[in-house]
């Protein structure tokens, strides 16, 4: 049973991988297979024929992922630290201020109009980074984690030794909360890496497309060309390997995640286990 479910989880990846290594002709003729019937690299050749666009999208995504994750982690850990301090009187008021945003909000449209028209964030890196910096869920996760990882006495004694609150946070709490930081960091990084939504709303300049949005766009453009070809009777797909290019593109974009996955998965499981269950 578990084996079947695991297979179901992995087969779609094999299908895409196999598609990316198949010749386009064999896909058009026989459809997608689990293993390539006619091995070919033409899809990858097509993707890297014009490498600047792919590389630019990679650059944008790597940049926003690194900056966003680092900045987000810094702010979330600070907020989590302050909100769990029992000697901070307004901690419940501020916690509710943050939590309330999950209960009620203005919705997508007012949010969009404000960032685009009032803050003028269209086509900026700020808009790619800012909205993903934190969520109430991650702050609560971090707050709980710090509470269980750092004993109050330790903070107390650091205080007596003359350390100020920032100092305590920076040299005591950060070191003890490492597993929680790893988990929240992974959540953030995953969010930035997989983001296509922000580009689709705020970015018009193709040089600033995030990787996933670039993939999304390419898929749609190729499908569009294909449909045009069907309508007009011109079979473009013989000249351009559309099907295998789509799959190769998907692999190129997803590659780093699949490659890093075995290494980061462990931390994810560990952090979730400690932070989430205790609620």
């Amino acid at each position: 049973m578990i084996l079947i479910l695991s297979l179901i989880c992995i087969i779609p990846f094999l299908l895409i991988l196999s598609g990316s290594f198949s010749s386009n002709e064999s896909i058009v003729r026989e459809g997608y297979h689990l293993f390539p019937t006619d091995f070919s690299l033409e899809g990858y050749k097509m993707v890297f024929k014009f490498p600047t666009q792919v590389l630019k999208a990679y650059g944008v995504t790597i940049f926003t992922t690194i900056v966003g994750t680092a900045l987000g982690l810094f702010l979330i850990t600070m907020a989590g630290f302050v909100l769990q301090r029992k000697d901070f009187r307004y901690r419940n008021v501020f916690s509710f201020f943050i939590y309330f945003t999950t209960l009620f909000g203005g919705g997508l449209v007012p949010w969009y109009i404000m960032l685009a028209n009032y803050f003028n964030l269209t086509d900026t890196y700020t808009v790619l980074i800012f909205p993903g910096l934190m969520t109430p869920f991650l702050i609560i996760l971090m707050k709980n984690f710090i509470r269980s990882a750092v004993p109050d006495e330790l903070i107390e004694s650091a205080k007596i030794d003359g350390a100020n609150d920032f100092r305590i946070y920076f040299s005591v709490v950060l070191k003890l909360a490492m597993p929680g930081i790893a988990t929240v960091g992974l959540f953030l990084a995953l969010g930035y890496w997989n983001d296509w939504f922000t580009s689709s709303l705020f970015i018009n300049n193709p040089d600033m497309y995030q990787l996933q949005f670039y993939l999304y766009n390419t898929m749609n453009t190729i499908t569009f060309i294909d449909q045009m070809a069907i309508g007009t009777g011109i079979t473009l797909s013989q000249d351009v390997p559309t099907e295998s290019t789509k799959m190769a593109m998907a692999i190129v974009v997803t590659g780093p995640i699949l490659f890093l996955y075995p290494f980061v998965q462990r931390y994810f499981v560990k952090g979730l286990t400690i932070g989430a269950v205790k609620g």
Partner: protein
Amino acid sequence: MLKELNKNKIMFLMLLPTLIFFLINSYFPMVGIYYAFTRYDFEGGLFGSPFVGLENFKFLWQSGMLLKLTTNTVGYNLAFIILGNGLAIFCAILLSEIRGKVFKKITQSVMFLPYFISFVLLSVIAYNMFNYESGFVNTVLKRFEAGPVDIYNTPWIWVFLIIIFYLWKNLGYSMVIYLAAITGISDEYYEAARIDGANIFQRIWYITVPMLKPTFVILLLFSLGSIMKGQFDLFYQLIGNNGVLYNATDIIDTYVYRSLKVTFDIGMATAAGLYQSLFGFILIMTVNYIIRKVNEDYALF
């Protein structure tokens, strides 16, 4: 307040960026709810657009849009919650009973993998499997001389596909949480049961399942709270702008997004968004109130 501010100056400073973030990202946009009551024009902006009262809501209601969107959104979410939690609990129990350590590790990793991929890749996967000419499913069907089926033009199939894709993507994540809860159950219970002669099914039914109840309730509450918010990425990436499927698959989030990006119906889109927010808010309050009455420990706040 001032005294406290002075005493904990540094802590206030440390919290300040977070407060500003939520102010800009969540509280300022609430002012824009006003758009829901106007006929938006691009020249006028927020307060220059003509005020039309409840006209936007009336139109949404009369066009049947509000009803359809609500049933779809709530229906899908209920399916996600019930099937998602059920399957996750089932798998977590199965996996916890498996003794082979390597096998356990590998299967858990494999099942967690879909959680890490982007929704755009999910749409590529769907395309790969279900497209008319070369999709994997049709390739197989053709071999048995039963196809091809034009899945992208058949709305009812997508009801199941969306639910299956949701389960596929989230199973590993919720399973990990339940597995963690199972690991937390003390071995003594199982020892005692074994001495009393309980078989494996009795142990699962009388110990593991009841012990998972708190975790289940917490996850249930969180998901009930967001029952009006659909999984926007999932729906939009699978369905996109394929109008044939809207009736079976349109949720509030996709409708609002399209109204903003495609039809520029600002007033209508804001109205739908406000309806979503208010409905969700009332729902959470009610559920929380009921739960507080039944068992205070489980209440969210």
